[in-house]
């Protein structure tokens, strides 16, 4: 066995940089579909303790008294190269799981809010969340087959979006379309810090 101490820096391989992008939107807006179109999607379980009181670190007898809930999130990974990976997290749609968002949003590069024009109000909470926390986001209007088409301007007005926030039509089932949504987000992030990414 190698006798090199593992905490010696020279023995540590270069660590890949992982960027986190959230995929948000109302229930049924196409979050899972979009994550699957862009990456190999895997469910990620979180078993969250809902009560903060009386949690002892080694107390097995206390377990039954703790209230936990299991939430499954969609989770995908896009490998850009050996050193760079993009992780996609579909945010839990139900309101009662909002407490999970803060951890997901922590350190996130930005977010895609998927909107369904048949239920536009469903994406308001997501828009509010990212606006309030100053997290860059784009809105992707998922074009469902049976949905009436609205002009982007009408949707922008209905969402009362900041003019700087990109609003794009997309088909969450289509990989190319999904890629364009993510690209518009990364370009938006770059623009926000005054470093536009040249097209092409």
């Amino acid at each position: 066995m190698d006798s090199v101490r593992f905490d010696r820096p020279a023995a540590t391989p270069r660590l890949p940089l992982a960027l986190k992008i959230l995929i948000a939107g109302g229930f049924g807006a196409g979050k899972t579909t979009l994550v699957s179109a862009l990456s190999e999607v895997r469910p990620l379980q979180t078993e969250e303790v809902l009560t903060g009181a009386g949690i002892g670190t080694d107390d097995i007898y206390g377990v039954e008294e703790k209230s936990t809930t299991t939430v499954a999130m969609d989770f995908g990974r896009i490998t850009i190269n050996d050193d760079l990976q993009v992780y996609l997290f579909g945010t839990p749609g139900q309101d009662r799981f909002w407490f999970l968002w803060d951890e997901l949003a922590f350190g996130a590069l930005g977010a895609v809010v998927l909107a369904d024009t048949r239920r536009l109000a469903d994406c308001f909470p997501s828009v509010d969340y990212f606006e309030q926390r100053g997290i860059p986001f784009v809105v992707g209007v998922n074009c469902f087959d049976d949905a009436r088409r609205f002009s982007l301007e009408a949707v922008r007005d209905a969402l009362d979006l900041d003019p700087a926030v990109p609003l794009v039509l997309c088909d969450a089932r289509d990989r190319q379309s999904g890629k364009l949504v993510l690209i518009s987000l990364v370009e938006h992030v770059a623009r926000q810090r005054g470093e536009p990414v040249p097209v092409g």
Partner: protein
Amino acid sequence: MRAESPGPQHEWLDGAAGPVVRPYTLTGGRVRPPIEGFDLMAVVLAGLAADPAGQPGLQPEHRRLLELARRPVAVADLAADLDLAVGVVRVLLGDLVARGLVAVHRPPTGAYLPDDNILKAVVSGLRAL
């Protein structure tokens, strides 16, 4: 403490009974890791000398985590690979850190923002998908 999986003799156990082994049974009821900082994006790496065979008291899940962490791997990936709840994986990783078997590299936070070159690489990488 390990729970045996229920055999066919336990006919009172059915789908409606729910999971027999609660997630935190794997951690002996511990719900918080001894060490904080296991962000979903934190990268875990096993030490070169980390030999699970020489470590009594490790559970199969600990050993599996060690195997997966031979190469740098994110906490979220480990949880998905093991099909375990993130909270459980955090506690198990805490055990491994306490034994000096893995190192956890926290993702950059706070003022950190990926620079322009990284964003360009992401855009061109996405275009090439």
